[in-house]
């Protein structure tokens, strides 16, 4: 534990020195810069993934729409076949009605007893023929309306397919732009390293250590006035003893040019 802390302290001192002198920005700014860079990199990757998922979903949607169009066209063709079949059926009922009329006419020519049965059958068949004719016409009209609705549905599906195609093209452009952004943000990391003379891991570690130190100071400030200072010092001395020794030994080595953050951290 002691080696790790010494290494962290050396890194902090070295980074604080180089940054403070070379670029005029502090460790906190560097941490914010690298944090922002990481967020930008993560966001650009997330955007790229999202755009790819959108493109994939659009491709599936387009496939579904095309399959629906094919099925609708097949149904439209079958509906037209059924309409033609119903037209033939209507003609058959018309012919059947004519046969019944002619049978009735023949029954009228026959003597009363023989013709009566024929006329009865004629009337019955003609009634059924007329009923079948009307039913087949109604069915044909209903199927015609269905085919018309199906045609409108096909038009809507064609529009949906065109919209899906456009959206897929836009998604492809967005995916390319997201990939470019991701590369640019990734390249930006090298520039940041050169400009700051540090690396993201070090800066992040120092920032975390600084935050912990601030939290410790804030906690001590909360306790002051409520608890006797001697009591607090005796309670935290065993924990802080190694840190104090480390700061004393490493602080002597870097006492020639202490950075601003270093001064503030030591004071705190």
């Amino acid at each position, binding site marked *: 534990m002691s080696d790790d802390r010494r290494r962290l302290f050396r890194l902090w001192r070295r980074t604080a020195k180089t940054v403070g002198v070379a670029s005029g920005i502090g460790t906190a700014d560097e941490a914010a810069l690298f944090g922002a860079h990481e967020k930008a990199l993560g966001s650009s990757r997330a955007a790229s993934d999202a755009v790819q998922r959108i493109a994939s979903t659009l491709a599936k949607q387009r496939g579904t729409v095309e399959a629906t169009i094919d099925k609708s066209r097949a149904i439209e063709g079958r509906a037209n076949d059924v309409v033609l079949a119903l037209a033939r059926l209507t003609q058959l009922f018309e012919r059947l009605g004519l046969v019944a009329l002619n049978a009735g006419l023949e029954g*009228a020519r026959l003597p009363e007893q023989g013709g009566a049965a024929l006329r009865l059958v*004629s*009337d019955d068949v003609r009634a059924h023929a007329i009923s079948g004719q009307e039913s087949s016409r109604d069915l044909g009209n209903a199927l015609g309306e269905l085919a018309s609705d199906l045609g409108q549905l096909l038009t809507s599906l064609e529009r949906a397919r065109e919209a899906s195609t456009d959206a897929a093209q836009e998604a492809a452009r967005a995916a390319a732009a997201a990939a470019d952004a991701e590369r640019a943000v990734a390249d930006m990391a090298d520039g940041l390293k050169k400009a700051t003379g540090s690396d993201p891991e070090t800066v992040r570690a120092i920032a975390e250590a600084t935050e912990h130190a601030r939290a410790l100071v804030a906690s001590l400030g909360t306790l002051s006035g409520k608890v006797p200072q001697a009591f607090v010092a005796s309670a935290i001395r065993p924990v802080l003893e190694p840190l104090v020794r480390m700061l004393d030994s490493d602080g002597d080595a870097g006492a020639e040019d202490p950075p601003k953050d270093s001064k503030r951290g030591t004071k705190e």
Partner: protein
Amino acid sequence: MGGVVVDTDGGLLFVPASVALKFVAMPKLLTVPDAPPGLLGVALIDGTVIPVVTLGSSRDTMLVCTYLGEPIGIVGHTVVASGTFEPAHEQPGSVRCKAGIAKTMDLSSVAASLSKNAWAGRSTGL
């Protein structure tokens, strides 16, 4: 009285079974140039070319009748019933059916008017 009752633009008409031969589906008609207004055209029925006259606007079926041994096609009607009908005593020469009273169709007058109109047209042309 045996026969068939048809509905025309001029009302119900009764065609006796002795005149009415049969009903056929509406055939293809060939128009005749300078034909009288009542003559719709000619049609081929059972291998015979017959004149076709019209009684109205309907074109559902054609009734083939015989007049003086010659077939004549009649269109422009809707069939009401076929069979035997009771004579309507209040109107001599008419029959009673469910749809009302039907006058007996005078096929001779129709044929005569066609001939007269045809001759009249020829005289006008000269």
